[in-house]
């Protein structure tokens, strides 16, 4: 896959098109385990792009895609992604018992302290509302197992007492939030 640097001369909006091949948009479904990008906070996006470029997060093809991009390119790309609309929530039928369990977990562990009460995210903290269920579950599992390092240690700290069953309930619930 061509590095984004190869198309750096293009506008960030044009570059964004190659992102959406995998990440999806209103017209295209994302690939399994690949997050929707719409309405994510600028700081979160910038930090993640930086971590991929610096190989602090290793998910192919992200590192290859970002190789050679300058700091300002990362910021321009993040600024273009910010303009994408929020993803449509998961429309599959919800399991009422799982939703109730997840709501209790959210309260107990104060997920919305940082992610906002509507799960829209802020600054370095991602939007969760309407995110793909499979990606949310993968992210929680990867934070817990250290397969994914956070920019800081907050998620590791918060997930310390949580179990895989909790993660499944949380992903089920959060993917259905608008």
């Amino acid at each position, binding site marked *: 896959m061509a590095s984004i640097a190869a198309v750096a001369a293009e506008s960030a909006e044009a570059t964004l098109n190659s992102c959406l091949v995998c990440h999806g948009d209103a017209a295209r479904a994302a690939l399994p385990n690949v997050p929707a990008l719409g309405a994510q906070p600028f700081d979160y996006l910038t930090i993640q792009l930086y971590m991929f470029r610096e190989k602090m997060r290793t998910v192919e093809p992200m590192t290859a895609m970002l190789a050679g991009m300058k700091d300002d390119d990362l910021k321009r790309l993040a600024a273009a992604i910010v303009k994408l609309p929020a993803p449509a929530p998961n429309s599959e039928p919800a399991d009422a018992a799982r939703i109730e369990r997840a709501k209790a977990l959210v309260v107990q562990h*104060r997920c*919305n*302290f940082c992610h906002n009460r509507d799960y829209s995210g*802020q600054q*370095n903290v991602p939007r969760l509302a309407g995110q793909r269920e499979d990606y949310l579950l993968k992210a929680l599992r990867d934070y817990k197992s250290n397969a994914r*390092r956070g920019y800081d240690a907050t998620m*590791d700290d918060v997930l310390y007492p949580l179990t895989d069953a909790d993660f499944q309930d949380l992903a089920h619930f959060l993917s259905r939030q608008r």
Partner: protein
Amino acid sequence: MKTSCAVFTRLLLLAGLCAFPFATVYAQTAEATKPIPPMQPVPSAVPGRPDVPNAEVEKQLRNTPPLPFPVAEDKLPLGDLKVPKGFKVEVYTSGIANARSMRMGDKGTLFVSNRLLDKVWAVVDKNGKRENKVIAAGLDRPNGLAFHQGTLYIAEGTKISKMENIEDNLDNPPKPVVIYSDFLNHQSHGWKFMGLGPDNKLYVNVGSPCNICEPPETNGQLRRINLDGTGAEVVVRGVRNSVGFDWHPVSKELYFTDNGRDWLSEDLPNDELNRVTKQGQHFGFPYCHQGNFTDREMGWGRTCDEFEKPAALLGPHVAALGMRFYTGKMFPAEYQNGIFIARHGSWNKSKKLGGDIIYVTLNKDGSVKSFKPFLTGFLQNNGYVGRPVDVLVMKDGSLLISDDHAGAVYRVSYGAATKVAAR
């Protein structure tokens, strides 16, 4: 999994001791040096997250890290920084994103580490002009640094490595060689602070992998190892997370800062300055905070009398990090052998506190007499224009201060000497 309490009890019985277990430290060390399986921490019954009355207060209780880019030198908040009369503060260097711990090489190279990022930097002074070079990258939270006879030691999340003859090879640095890796892999308090003791051993904090929990036997401690990575042993226990320590220049006693737990109260607990007078001492975490009250979750059935008392209480949630005894000749005599401490600044407090350098005066017997603000101004309008992390006394007696939010290093000098290193 066994609790540390249960293990202590077992070892006490084996050793036939009734006092707190100085002798048992060695038995625990033998355990600690065995390979350790991946961590499966025991969840605490209550995760320590409080009810907060409204969304506005919630917003003031967020721990927001800096972006991975340094602030341009002409945008640094130099004008906000205040020092006592006769002192002067200037920018020593800028452009080092997430500048954390600092160590000085024998030939005058300043080494600066990262916590959120992956690099270690060397700052070389050429006729008053500073040049910054990356000497190692792709590291895992390389927060801890120590320097001994030409070799730089780097403590990452799960290992300690070394770079020999580093000052002669700054433009072609060797790859760090691992000398020790007996650490659990955890993000929470997983970064390390490191220092070289007067016994020429590497001292390293092994933080508690949580806000509040019963840490595994291998954690919640200061540990020391020989320079070749052998001979690991526990120095003290009951440490939540220390990100700064130093040795008294006369008594050679170890003093360390420790960060108190989060989410207990706006005003409690205080961060601690602790003084080690005997190997194997236990400083209270997770059972007792600030030497005078038991934890609301972990403290039941315990008393603070079981543990060492702090030497000083440094303020609630202030994140007291780097500290150094002042051994230079530049500052007035009253600063001799006292301690400069960087307070990174609170996040788990709606009315922010810290974001400064304080100066601690000691009594002749090594106890704390008092402390007062020394450099202030990183805290403006209940937000931070910078976050001080580490302090370092230069050979000329001036004081360097790292700032991990702006990615800069400041220098404080006194009197006529303020002119010497002007850029």
